[in-house]
């Protein structure tokens, strides 16, 4: 019997789980939530100076294999991520696990045909139409999740009732997990929770602090890998904006790239690789829109974002906008992050008053 598992990335395990369960009709084992133990396991067996997502993925896989999984799915691409699969398979084999490793990456990009062919080999009843139907539902799920996460990010710091936003989010995710979905029911679910969020009482001043969160995709989308920095910023009473979501990466990135380069002509001539172009151009736009500050996060050693950082420094001086850089590795402590965030908060607050 096939028991499929896949690496975590934020809350996106819900749509991925939904898709896999429906198209393969096999058991899907979601890895246990990321904890300190996950990263310890991952770091122990990874090369020293590889970037953090590799270690988190490996930790996820080991924990899932311990829970009985025997098929591992891996997908990704753009930078080093495209090559993770081969080494992870080798490491896990050397550790003595028995499993099948399925890699959906082709030419450094996720290939949808590979996914279909693989699902077909497990589930003979699958055809193009049912596959497209489930894929469509999954896409809608991802889109509504991203749309619904925008409002809490901007208002969480100003809630009157404590934890009202987080509780609503939890309810939403429970409902997303429980039901059988059709595109229409998903849209209804979206509208219901949109209204619910809007009805939560908040106490928001008109000229509150506004910051943009840019950087490497995994750190941004997986809160555990970045010490929950987004939540920490928001709960200080800052309106947090971020633009890297799965919706963007899957459906929008391809069309936007050329436009981005055109916009960022002042600093860029060529595409910088992975998401670095976005980091630079977005920061420029945020600066032009007079945001109060920019938070740039990445995992240690992420080369594309390092490329972006050397240009961000120039933007920071040109537009006089404060930028703070965070680089996460397995040893990053909560306390250190909090101190730096608070100092940054004080600084932008002071700047705003002047």
């Amino acid at each position, binding site marked *: 019997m096939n028991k499929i598992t896949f690496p975590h990335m934020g809350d996106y395990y819900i749509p991925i789980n939904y898709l896999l369960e429906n198209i393969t009709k096999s058991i899907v084992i979601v890895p246990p939530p990321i904890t300190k133990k996950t990263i310890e396991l991952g770091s122990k067996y990874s*090369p*020293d*100076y*590889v*970037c953090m997502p*590799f270690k988190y993925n490996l930790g996820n896989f080991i924990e899932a294999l311990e829970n009985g999984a025997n098929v591992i799915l891996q997908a990704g691409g753009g*930078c*080093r991520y*495209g*090559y*993770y*699969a*081969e*080494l992870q398979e*080798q*490491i896990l084999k*050397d550790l003595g696990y028995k499993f099948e490793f399925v*890699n959906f*990456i082709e*030419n*450094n990009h996720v290939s949808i045909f590979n996914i279909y062919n693989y699902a077909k080999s497990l589930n003979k009843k699958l055809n193009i139409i049912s596959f497209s139907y489930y894929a469509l539902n999954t896409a809608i799920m991802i889109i509504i999740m991203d749309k619904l996460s925008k409002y809490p990010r901007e208002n969480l710091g100003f809630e009157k009732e404590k934890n009202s936003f987080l509780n609503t989010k939890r309810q939403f995710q429970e409902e997303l997990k429980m039901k059988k979905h059709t595109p229409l029911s998903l849209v209804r679910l979206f509208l219901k929770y949109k209204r619910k969020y809007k009805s939560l009482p908040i106490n928001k001043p008109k000229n509150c602090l506004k910051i943009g969160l840019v950087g490497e995709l995994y750190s941004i989308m997986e809160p555990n890998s970045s010490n929950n920095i987004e939540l920490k910023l928001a709960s200080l009473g800052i309106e947090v904006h971020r633009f890297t979501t799965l919706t963007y990466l899957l459906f929008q990135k391809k069309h936007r790239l050329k436009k981005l380069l055109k916009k960022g002509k002042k*600093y*860029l*001539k*060529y*595409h*910088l*690789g*992975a998401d*670095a172009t976005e980091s630079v151009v977005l920061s420029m736009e945020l600066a032009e829109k007079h945001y109060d500050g920019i938070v740039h996060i990445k995992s*240690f*050693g992420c*080369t*594309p974002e*390092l*490329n*972006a*950082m*050397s*240009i961000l420094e*120039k933007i920071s001086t040109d537009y006089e906008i404060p930028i703070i850089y965070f*680089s996460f590795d397995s040893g990053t402590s909560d306390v250190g992050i909090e101190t730096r965030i608070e100092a940054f908060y004080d600084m932008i607050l002071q700047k705003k008053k002047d």
Partner: protein
Amino acid sequence: MKQITIGLPKAYLYYRYHIMWETFFKNLGCKVITSENTTKKTIELGKSLSIDESCLSSKIYLSHVASLQGKCDYILVPRVYDYGKNEQVCVKFNAIYDIIKNLFPNINILEYNIEKSKHHYELFNYFHLGHAIEKNIIKILLSYLKARKASKKYFKEKLKKQTQKLNSYKPKILLVSHPYNIYDNYIGEPIIKKLESMGIELIYADLLDKKTARMYAEKLSPTLYWTYSKELIGAIGYYRYSVDGIIFLTAFPCGPDSLVNELMIRKIDNIPVTSILVDEQSSTTGLETRLESFIDIIKERRKNNE
């Protein structure tokens, strides 16, 4: 007319293309100058110019560019995106042009952009390069052809010498490292000198014919898509039964190498393998001890096999 001076920073792709560039520009009547060898001072300057976490090789590159500032009319900064489908390079090469441009706004950069998937081929680039200097297209084309021939001949001869080395009775070690690390005065030179003084015959992975290397690489790692890494590990497949040991040499924290080398170390089981990581603070004594003990292992194994 005043003679135009072109500066070539002696780092990164210099080691791959220098014969070609030098011949090309000399044929067009330019003066070509190269930056000085890397020293401790170069590293210090590079550190101050770049972000802490950047790889040592990129720090060296920035420093070399800085040292050429003011000494020449143009500096050649190559930018590479890909060599076709499944033939990509480290993202550092994608961004190096923009980094330099933002860091040194005052220098004149000669552009050179290889992006085969978007039809930026090598020949077009040379027309582009030549255009800044010479208006006669035929002259540019002839210079390009001459340069290509010279470069091919240079690497062929080197490979020929290396093939002869394989017949030597001395212990042979394969050095797997990017050319910009192994031939660098600071990173690779001390290691080469030490090994040669111990009577080791050195085989360089990067000298192997590129096509052959890529073919062998596919067997060792089917999903690998970095061209430069492919060419290196292809040499492992080619030479692994004719050498006594393999040394991986990387600069901290090289992105592609962090994955590729680890995979190779796990896959090669017929000969001793070691990996050497060079960073800004590396000490020579520690390095020498490690090399000596590695050579001891190899010599011992040879004795036992005889």
